[in-house]
């Protein structure tokens, strides 16, 4: 019975692909629901940008809530079998599954977000979120009267830790004695807990909030008490119209359009793209609710980072234990050091969990 169903599904898929032969089929695999208003939501916005720009030439599909286990491989394979020629897998945990399926289907192009394993038909891409953190650090140090920043974080992976370090290094250039209070909630997404953590940080004297978790809870909770905050992944100004300072916005649309066009033109090649403020993969929500001089500092920093004049991890970088970190990138830390960051810079009064 089951085999019959699969056969039937295959026939339907085949006839469907025959009918839409001229259109390129592009698929996305999402780890969360498109309604998370965070990570997955931004990828979905990117997919919609592709539809808008190339809708007459492509058909798009997405599978949401795909868990990072055996299910991932099945889902990716399902897209591959149903005629998709370009497939984006948008979570770190899809890495091995994507590699496996890519080896099986050498004529299909795969793109994996935030991973590091590549094949001839498998490219990787990610964004330099820490560049946005540098700007946030500058703003936070300027806005804070108590000299305490509150930082809500999810899980201790290098992307999160490099964000904390970039924030702290930037903030120290404004106020050398600035402190950061860090709360790990242990998950990416739990609005109630994020709100409680924001509350705890404010109760302990933090007067500016930032987060590396996925919901708008911290912005909303801060707004209730008039405490300024930064949004995450998407512009959360609605939740803190009078308190959100800015937000790091993941902007995948231009990249997705570019890569889809390359496939249409037959020019797609594998590679690794790590975009930032310069390429527009990371953008900042409008600078709001801050005095003009702070706004100017933020805008100048953004322009300088995009122009390659300001580096978030400019050497010398001093680690928490007082030792100067080896400078592998000449004047700055190199990409490998940032991608593998598992230590704090001097001035962070916390321990990396599990270390």
């Amino acid at each position, binding site marked *: 019975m089951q085999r019959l169903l699969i056969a039937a599904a295959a026939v339907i898929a085949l006839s469907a692909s025959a009918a839409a032969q001229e259109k390129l089929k592009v698929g996305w695999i999402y780890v969360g629901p498109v309604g998370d208003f965070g990570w997955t939501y931004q990828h979905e916005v990117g997919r919609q940008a592709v539809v808008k720009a190339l809708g007459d030439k492509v058909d798009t599909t997405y599978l949401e809530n795909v868990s990072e286990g055996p299910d991932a491989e099945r889902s990716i394979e399902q897209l591959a079998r149903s005629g998709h020629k370009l497939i984006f897998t948008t979570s770190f945990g899809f890495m091995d599954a994507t590699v496996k399926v890519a080896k099986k289907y050498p004529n299909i192009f795969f793109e994996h977000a935030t991973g590091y394993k590549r094949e001839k038909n498998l490219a990787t891409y990610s964004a330099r979120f820490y560049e946005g953190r540098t700007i946030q650090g500058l703003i936070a140090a300027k806005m804070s009267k108590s000299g305490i920043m509150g930082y809500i974080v999810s899980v201790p992976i290098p992307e999160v830790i490099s964000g904390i370090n970039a924030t702290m290094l930037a903030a120290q250039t404004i106020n050398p004695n600035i402190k950061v209070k860090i709360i790990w909630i*242990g998950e990416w997404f739990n609005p109630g807990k994020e709100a409680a953590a924001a509350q*705890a940080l404010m109760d302990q004297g933090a007067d500016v909030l930032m987060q590396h978790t996925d*919901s708008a809870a911290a912005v909303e909770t801060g707004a209730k008490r008039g405490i300024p905050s930064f949004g995450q992944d998407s512009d959360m100004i609605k939740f803190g119209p009078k308190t959100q300072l800015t937000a790091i916005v993941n902007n995948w649309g231009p990249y997705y359009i570019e890569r889809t066009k390359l496939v249409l033109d037959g020019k797609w090649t594998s590679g690794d793209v790590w975009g930032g403020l310069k390429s527009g993969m990371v953008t900042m929500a409008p600078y709001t609710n801050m005095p003009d001089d702070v706004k100017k500092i933020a805008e100048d920093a953004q322009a300088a980072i995009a122009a390659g004049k300001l580096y978030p991890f400019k050497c010398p970088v001093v680690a928490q234990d007082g030792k100067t970190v080896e400078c592998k990138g000449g004047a700055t830390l190199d990409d490998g050091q940032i991608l593998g960051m598992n230590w704090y810079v001097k001035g962070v009064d916390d321990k990396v*969990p599990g270390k």
Partner: protein
Amino acid sequence: MGLLDANLLQAIILSVIVASTPLLLAACGELVAERAGVLNLGVEGMMIMGAVCGFAGAHLTGSTLLGTLAGILAGVAMAAVFAALTLGLAVNQVATGLALTIFGLGLSGLIGAGFVGQRITRAPQLFIPVLSDLPFVGPILFGQDAFVYFSIVLVVGIWWFLYSTRPGLVLRAIGDNHASAHALGYPVLRLRAAAVLFGGACAGLAGAYLSLAYTPFFIAGMTAGRGWIALALVVFASWRPGRLAAGAYLFGAVTILQLHAQGAGLGIPPQLMTSLPYLATVIVLIIISRARGTAGSAAPASLGLAFVPDR
């Protein structure tokens, strides 16, 4: 350090109350259902449906009250599906409950798709004049939102109902031995259905609390496992309302205190602190099972068993 500062202590207590209330509301409903002998593992699903429908209701009508009612009704509707299957058709309760949770998580995402990123006004706190201005205890005892007061009324009400009224006694009898209760002429299935629907209403209310008062917005999956904690709480409380309230506040307190401990830089590993509530549940389960012989307050004897009347 300042951890013992009075203002901070007050702030911590306020946060604990807010974090505990959704657990308490959902667990109250499940306690009544389980006392009637029905194990409904669909709490998480009913709760998230309450959250999405509560938010949708409040967003569309602009009224917190109507939103709350919509949330309660959504929970009841979900519970009705469960009741129809497990009581009407005597389907396995565990499987149906799990299905209800998965169904609720999916359906709520679908309904909520249009509401993601929208916002509403937070449910108002009911400041009671004069009393809420009392130093220290004022804001804690007299400055909460309606949900918090209702959760306390609910606990007392359930306690009174179960132990001091005749229908409460019958409900417990059905949960402990449905065959005997049936032989005595009590309408087993009808009372169980009522208990299940009540459980759904409470779960829906708990969900509405999340999306209307705790964090006034809706995101798919925002219950984040609280329905499962509510289920664990009922066991933790050994099916008694008083212990249930204590357990809910203990869970809330551990959650909030671990956040404060981190912020204060006490150096306790966050992973350990996060696992404490669950560790506590396991320990209590062990204690209950050891004391079963003497305490005599273990699970209702007919819990989870299907009942088919011999007509």
